[in-house]
């Protein structure tokens, strides 16, 4: 009964529940939370082993790989969908409260929540996300497919009767979709994303240098010298890792061409997904896409020359959206506003 009243004191939220990061967009305030989707759980000693949350978000990410026996830092989402239901619920609860801390403390927040789901997720997975958000205190839960949110966030004219193609490269999944008249005409999801890039770099370094590097080192390499297309200049980076033969940390230098080689496999997976999408797109919409180009969003779009790679591979114009990391969350927020303004329905069914 008081849900509506409490709703007056809560903000509508759009949540990009990603494998790597969770972003929350608040209507009228913008992105207010951007934290890793990591939860640290402490197991109490004794019978039954009751679990409780030790840390969430940035704090928990710092614990990844550095925990003692009774603490476990886990990522409750895998490949864009919930792998651990209760932990996801706790994490969402934590984030929703965190967003509301500064105001109206005496009310439990009960916001309307829009959550972005991968288009490849099954009904069971969607249901899990919906339940999770409801369990975390949401008054109403809306689901929107990630590429749709990304397209709205990037500013694509999704409501027009013309095809818009969007490629959202996230941490766990890459979503490609062709959108027309506020609906998804074609969509596909491949389970390749930023995490796979990191893995590929780790494997490459182990294979060619006989050295083990950690995930965060791999991420740093990707961000600093990673590229998707051979460029004019060759960048170098000095990294440290444990030499497998000697067992001693050693320092060595990697260059951008090596990383390009390392990334070939995941990159070709994404390129082939895009090509498949273009094949499957109805010809009229395909022509629209060919004329105006496709838009890249998500963290993967920040990989150097990714747009160039796709341009060369497909022969179509490829554009990187403004602020690609937050496109999905912003698009979700915009979609929430549209519920109030026009009643346009861009939401997905269960």
């Amino acid at each position: 009964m008081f849900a509506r009243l409490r709703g007056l004191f809560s903000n509508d939220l759009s949540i990009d529940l990603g494998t790597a990061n969770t972003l929350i967009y608040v209507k009228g305030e913008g992105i207010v939370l951007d934290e890793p989707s990591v939860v640290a759980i402490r197991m109490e000693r004794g019978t039954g082993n009751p679990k409780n949350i030790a840390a969430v978000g940035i704090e928990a990410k710092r614990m990844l790989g550095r925990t003692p026996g009774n603490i476990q830092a886990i990522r409750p989402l895998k490949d864009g969908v919930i792998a651990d239901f209760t932990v996801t619920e706790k994490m969402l609860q934590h984030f929703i409260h965190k967003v509301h801390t500064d105001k109206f403390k005496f009310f439990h927040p009960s916001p309307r929540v829009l959550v972005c789901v991968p288009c490849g997720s099954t009904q069971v997975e969607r249901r899990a996300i919906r339940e999770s958000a409801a369990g975390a205190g949401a008054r109403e839960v809306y689901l929107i497919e990630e590429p749709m949110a990304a397209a709205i966030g990037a500013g694509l004219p999704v409501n027009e009767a013309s095809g818009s193609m969007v490629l959202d490269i996230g941490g766990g999944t890459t979503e490609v979709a062709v959108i027309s008249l506020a609906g998804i005409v074609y969509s596909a999801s491949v389970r390749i994303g930023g995490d796979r890039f990191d893995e590929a770099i780790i494997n490459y370094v182990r294979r060619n240098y006989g050295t083990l590097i950690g995930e965060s080192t791999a991420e740093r390499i990707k961000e600093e010298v990673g590229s998707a297309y051979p460029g004019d200049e060759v960048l170098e980076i000095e990294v440290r890792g444990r030499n497998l033969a000697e067992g001693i940390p050693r320092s060595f230098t990697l260059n951008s061409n090596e990383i390009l080689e390392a990334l070939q496999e995941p990159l070709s997976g994404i390129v082939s997904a895009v090509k498949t999408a273009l094949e499957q797109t109805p010809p009229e919409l395909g022509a629209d896409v060919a004329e105006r180009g496709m838009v890249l969003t998500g963290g993967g779009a920040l990989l150097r020359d990714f747009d160039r790679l796709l341009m060369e591979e497909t022969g179509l114009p490829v554009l990187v959206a403004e602020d690609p990391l937050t496109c999905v969350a912003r698009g979700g927020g915009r979609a929430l506003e549209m519920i109030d303004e026009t009643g346009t329905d861009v939401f997905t069914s269960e």
Partner: protein
Amino acid sequence: MNDTPGNDEGREAQDEATPGERLRAAREASGQDVQEVARRLRIDSLRITAMEEGDISALGAPVFAAGYVRAYARLVGLPSEELLSDYALDGAATTPPALDESPLARPTTTRWSRSRAPRRKAGGGKGWRAVLIWLLVALVLAAAAGWWLMMQRGGVLPSAAVGEQAAARQQLSLPHTPAGDAQAAGRPAEVVPETTPGNEPTVPDRQAAEPVSGAGVAGDAASSSAPTRQPAEDELEIAFSEDSWVELYDGSGKRLLHRLARAGEALSFVGPAPFKLVLGYVPGVRLRLNGEAVDLSPYRGRRLARLTLAGDSTRNENRP
């Protein structure tokens, strides 16, 4: 050929070159023609020309326009963000399209619903919210005002009102007891000068009538002389043979007692009836109202009692 169309003239006056001209100059410096750039960017050559002429609207949605400009700038080695701000595109591209120009916000008839019907009509959400908030505020204000008024009147009303009430009760209950008779009979005479003092002690039915007029006049008399609440007052004696919690309120609602009384204590109060009493341990308490013992037998076998004593007759309002 170097003429720029009208929409860039104002800007041209400030800057030495429009962004379109800078792009064209950079392209020519690198020795590429429009076709070459179009081929390399996979963009239609018409769009390249539009960019060079500063005709951004021909490029379509801001996301595309910004993207094309960025790609072109990168190809010819110009700072793309600077060019974008020169085109005044930056703002349009970073912020989502404004309400009226947003394709989705357009009042089209595309209200088909695949899953859930939209909850509210267009614009309904905000208005509803505002109305509810104002209603809440008004309610709170009204409540506060009401409370304040109550408090204002509360200082004056109870004594008079309760005094009258008490007087009314007294006349109903008093005539039975001689002691009460004497007291009650004596008091109206003090306050009410109009009643003839000669006949009052002997005629009980006169008394039944008089206090009413007496109480009525008491108000008037109070304004002229010092207010005495004598006619409505009773005497209550409490004797404790055991420790007991006791709360006592007189007829005006004043709290006279609120503590644990010790065994052996004997207390006496004079004040307007009815007295409200809460006794924590009834077996250890003796009550006398106006000198007469109050019958506590209804509470036999119990510890807690709540009772109201009006005049000298005990009316038990026992609400456990």
